[in-house]
C-alpha cells in the first residue's frame, strides 16, 4: 500500500469516527436490504454534510463501490479538497455551470457504465423548506438510460441541526438515513410524473 493510499484510509477512518461521534450515522433499511448491486441512491438535500452522512451510513463493503457526486468548481479549488474527494470519497466531479455542447450528466454516465453505484441529490441545491424542492431531470435521464440500475430513495433526517448554514462548529445530534423501497421507471411514464413520484418516495420515508 502506498503512503498516499494509507493516508486516505486513515482520513476515511477519522472522518467515519467523527461522523459517528456527532450523529450516530444510523442506517435504517426499510424498503430494501443493503446489497452489493448497482444502485443510485437519491436523497433530500439540506446540508453540506449530507454526502458524508450517506457515505458513513452505508456498510463498508458498499461504501467502497458507491461514489458520491461533487461539484467540480468547489471541490477542485485546493489540493486538499481535490485529494479528499478523489482519494477518500472517490467522488464523481460534475460541472455546475452548463457549458455549450456538453452533457453535465456525462461523468455520471461514465461511472455507471463502469459499474459503480452513485449517491445523488436530485434537488440540485440545498433546500431550507420542510419538504424537498422539485427534482431535476437528471434522475429521470439516468433511469431511462440505465434501466437495470436500482433506484433507492433515501431520507436524511436531522442533519441540518448538526451544522446550520453559516456555522463552523458542528454539534452532536443523532441523525439517520432511511433507505426505502426501490423506485422503477414505468412503461411510458413521462418525466414530470416520474420525478414527482420519486420525490414523494423520498418524502414518505420521513415518517417511517
Amino acid at each position, binding site marked *: 500500500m502506498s503512503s498516499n493510499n494509507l493516508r486516505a484510509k486513515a482520513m476515511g477512518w477519522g472522518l467515519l469516527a467523527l461522523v*459517528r461521534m456527532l450523529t*450516530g*450515522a*444510523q*442506517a*435504517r433499511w426499510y424498503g430494501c436490504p443493503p446489497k452489493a448491486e448497482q444502485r443510485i441512491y437519491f436523497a433530500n438535500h439540506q446540508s453540506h454534510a449530507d454526502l458524508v452522512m450517506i457515505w458513513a451510513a452505508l456498510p463498508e463493503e458498499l461504501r467502497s463501490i458507491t461514489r458520491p457526486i461533487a461539484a467540480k468548481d468547489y471541490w477542485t479549488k485546493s489540493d486538499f479538497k481535490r485529494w479528499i474527494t478523489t482519494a477518500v470519497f472517490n467522488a464523481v466531479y460534475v460541472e455546475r455551470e452548463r457549458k455549450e455542447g456538453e452533457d453535465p450528466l456525462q461523468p455520471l454516465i461514465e461511472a455507471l457504465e463502469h459499474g459503480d453505484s452513485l449517491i445523488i441529490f436530485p434537488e440540485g441545491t440545498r433546500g431550507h423548506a420542510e419538504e424537498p424542492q422539485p427534482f431535476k431531470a437528471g434522475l429521470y435521464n439516468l433511469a431511462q438510460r440505465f434501466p437495470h440500475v436500482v433506484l433507492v430513495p433515501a431520507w436524511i433526517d*436531522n442533519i441540518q*441541526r448538526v451544522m*446550520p448554514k453559516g*456555522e463552523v*462548529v458542528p*454539534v*452532536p*445530534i*443523532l441523525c*439517520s438515513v432511511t433507505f426505502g423501497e426501490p423506485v422503477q421507471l414505468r412503461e411510458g411514464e413521462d418525466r414530470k410524473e416520474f420525478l414527482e413520484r420519486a420525490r414523494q418516495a423520498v418524502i414518505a420515508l420521513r415518517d417511517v
Partner: protein
Amino acid sequence: MNRFLRSLTATEQVAALFIIVFGILTIASVTAFLLSLRQRGAARDERWHAELKNFRRLLSTSWFMVVVFWIGWAAGPAVANILFALISFFALREFITLSPTRRGDHRSLVLAFFIVLPIQFWLVATRHFDLFTVFIPVYVFLAIPVVSAFSGDTQRFLERNAKLQWGIVVCVYGLSHVPALMLLEFRDYEGKGAFLVFFLVLVVQACMLLQHLLTRHLERKASIPAISSSFNWYSWLLGMVLGSFVGAVLSFITPFRTWQAVIMAFVACVAGSMGHLVMKALKRDRGVTAWGQRGISVTGANGLLDRVDALCFAAPIFFHSVRWYSGA
C-alpha cells in the same frame, strides 16, 4: 469470612467485590441461556416468552454497567472520568435529539457539548469539589441564555433555554457526580471510593428492578396513568423499603453505620425512582417510549439515557448527602 475480607487491602477488597458480582451475573446469564434452550422443546405461552426477553434485557444492562464500573475502577480515576464524560456526552446527544432546538441555539449547544461538559469533568478529575458543585447551576445557567440572546432569536426563548439547561443538569451535572464519588476522601476509607459508587448503583438498580417486578405481580391500578401505565404508590413504597434493606445489607462496604446506610439507600432510591418518573414524563411529552432515534437502534449507542436516568438523579443527591452529613 468477614475477618478475612477485612484483612485484605482496599484494592483486594474491591477486586473481591467485582469477582462476586461477575460471578452472580455469570450464573444469571447461564441460567437465562439454559431457560431459553428449554423453551424450544415445549411450546410455552407468550407471556413467559416476553418475561424471559425482559429479564435478558435487564441482564444485559447490568452486564454493561458492571463492566463499565470495573474498567473505571481497574484503570484508575482518570479513565473512569473519561468513561463517564463519554456516557454523559452520548446521553446529552440523545436528550438534545429529542428536544428540537432552533438555529439560534447552535452556539449554546456548542457551549454545552464542547466547553461545559469537559470543564465539569475536569473539575471532578482535579477534585475542585467546591467549584464543581456550583459551576453548572450558577455560571452555566447564566451563560446559556446570554449566548442564546446573542443569536437574536426571541421565539420561545425561555422554553428553549430551559430545555437546554435541563439537559445539561440531567446528563452532565447528574452523571459527573458518579466519578466524583470515587474521588471523595473519608477518614479510614482511602482508595475505596469505588465501593461508594458500587453501593449507589447496586442499591438504585436493585430498587428499580424490585419495583418493576412488584408492579408486574401485584397488578395494582396505575397511580399516574398519564405518565406511566404501571407506576403505583403501593409498589413504589415497597420498592423503597426493599432498596433500603439492600442498602443495610451492603453497609459493610461503605463508611456508614447500618442505620446511616439505610437512610442513604432510601434517599438514593427515592431520588432515582422519582427521576425515572420525570424522564418518563419527558418521553411521553415527546411521544416516544425510549430515548434515541425513535427507539430503533442500529449503532448501539441508543437508549443510553433510559439506562442511566435513575442514576442521573440519584448521584448528585447521594453525593451531597454523603458530603454534607458525613463531613467528607
